[in-house]
């Protein structure tokens, strides 16, 4: 290469660098709004628990977002603003006390599970904000706090009565649903789930329920052939939940039917919700959960996110 050709190349490079520099400066003036609404219903817990939650979660999951200077540099700031927006939408500790007590409890178990499974705080965030990491010792504090909330006690008469009432109706009415209830995403209640084979069962001591996870023929075949990550298209799970009815000797039977939930695999049709169509029908009347709850799809995917490397499925199948 001759020295003659070097000069124009250098000039070009300088020009590009200068242009990028100008762009960099200009985009600094594009500032998405991250507001700080007043905190009126903040999360309350013992100081050691509150401190961990504040440190690990509050930047994105409260109105008390604390941005460092390097969070405010564009183009990073766009992503930070998006994280805060999404984070507050999914869970906002500043609005904690506006939730019903049962929802608060469920949300806290979910939050601690997100941390325990390594899904939260988001790794890209903790790489920059290392102080937000939750070490094993802090996780143990959170788990101990939750464990105190578990009440394992014999069922009172209200639970027994609820079951008796349901049972009598169910025993008589074999064809209760002439028109099948449908979720806003188009998924209808599938009455045949009870004739499917079982994938597994679970005891949920966090919320006092017990469950059976049924699978359709495609799901059962996938378990037999061990093709479960990802699950094949056409797989359907039906998870049924009942109240626990415990006697004084510690024997637990199923109480009132709570709900049936479906996961339907179709990686094309349900691409926007990680390849799964989610549905939940509550009480024997099969009331679609998402009716009047536009955030349902997000709620399902967010809670299943810790299983992102397991095709978003929590259940570990038992071969039958």
């Amino acid at each position, binding site marked *: 290469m001759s020295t003659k050709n070097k000069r124009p190349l250098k000039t070009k490079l300088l020009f590009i660098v200068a242009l990028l520099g100008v762009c960099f400066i200009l985009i600094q003036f594009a500032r998405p709004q991250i507001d700080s609404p007043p905190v009126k219903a903040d999360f309350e817990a013992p100081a050691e628990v509150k401190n961990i939650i504040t440190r690990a979660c509050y930047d994105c999951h409260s109105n008390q977002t604390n941005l460092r200077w390097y*969070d405010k540099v564009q183009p990073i700031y766009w992503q930070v603003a998006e994280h805060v927006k999404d984070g507050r939408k999914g869970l906002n500790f500043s609005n904690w006390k506006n939730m019903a007590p049962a929802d608060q409890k469920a949300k806290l178990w979910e939050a601690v599970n997100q941390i325990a*499974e390594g*899904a939260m705080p988001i790794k890209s965030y903790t790489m920059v904000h290392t102080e937000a990491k939750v070490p094993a010792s802090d996780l143990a504090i959170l788990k101990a706090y939750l464990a105190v909330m578990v009440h394992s006690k014999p069922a009172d008469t209200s639970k027994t009565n609820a079951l008796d009432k349901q049972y009598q109706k169910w025993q008589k009415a074999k064809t209760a649903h002439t028109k099948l209830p449908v979720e806003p995403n188009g998924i209808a209640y599938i009455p045949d*789930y009870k004739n499917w084979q079982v994938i597994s069962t679970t*005891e949920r001591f966090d919320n006092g329920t017990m469950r059976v996870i049924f699978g359709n023929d495609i799901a059962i075949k996938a378990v037999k052939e061990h093709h*479960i990550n990802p699950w094949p298209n056409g797989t359907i799970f039906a998870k049924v939940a009942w109240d626990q009815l415990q006697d004084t000797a510690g024997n637990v039977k*199923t109480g009132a*039917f709570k709900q049936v939930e479906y996961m339907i695999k179709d990686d094309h049709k349900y691409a926007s919700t990680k390849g799964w169509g989610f549905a939940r029908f509550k009480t*024997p009347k099969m009331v679609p959960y998402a009716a009047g709850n536009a955030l349902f799809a997000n709620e399902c995917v967010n809670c299943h996110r810790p299983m992102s*490397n397991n095709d978003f499925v929590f259940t570990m199948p038992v071969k039958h």
Partner: protein
Amino acid sequence: MAGMVAILYACGDSANNNNAGTINARASLPDSLKFTALGYKVVTLSINKKLGTMSTLYGNKQALDNAIAGADDVKAGEAFALITWKQQDDDRWFGAKIPGNLQSVEMIKTAADASGKVAIAYTHLEGKNLSPIADTLHNAERIKYIFDQKPSVMP
């Protein structure tokens, strides 16, 4: 610094491994049982908190229908299977317990003899390999326990 931060923010987020893609082997039934082929349906499930066990009761159509109807007498052609596991903590959800080691399979079959009298046959298999238990001491008690189970409400 800002560039470094940008690179870190761009890194992918992934959760823990969670034994992704694995089957719950210790809880699985041996192939030799050919359980799925029996086509039994779920009747109910139960937990024993003192023993840390969980059980699922299955039945054939006739057994389930009779149980739902609340029939007092035992009819011929009923079949039940009660499968019991030791519980284990669910690694994927703090707050849940799932089947652990397979503990036992108890089977009941009813059939009418020549005179039309209904006889109840009970078998008890135990452990991972489902070895037959010959001791019949608790048979009557277990048969009564299984027939006394009320089906779970499945609308």
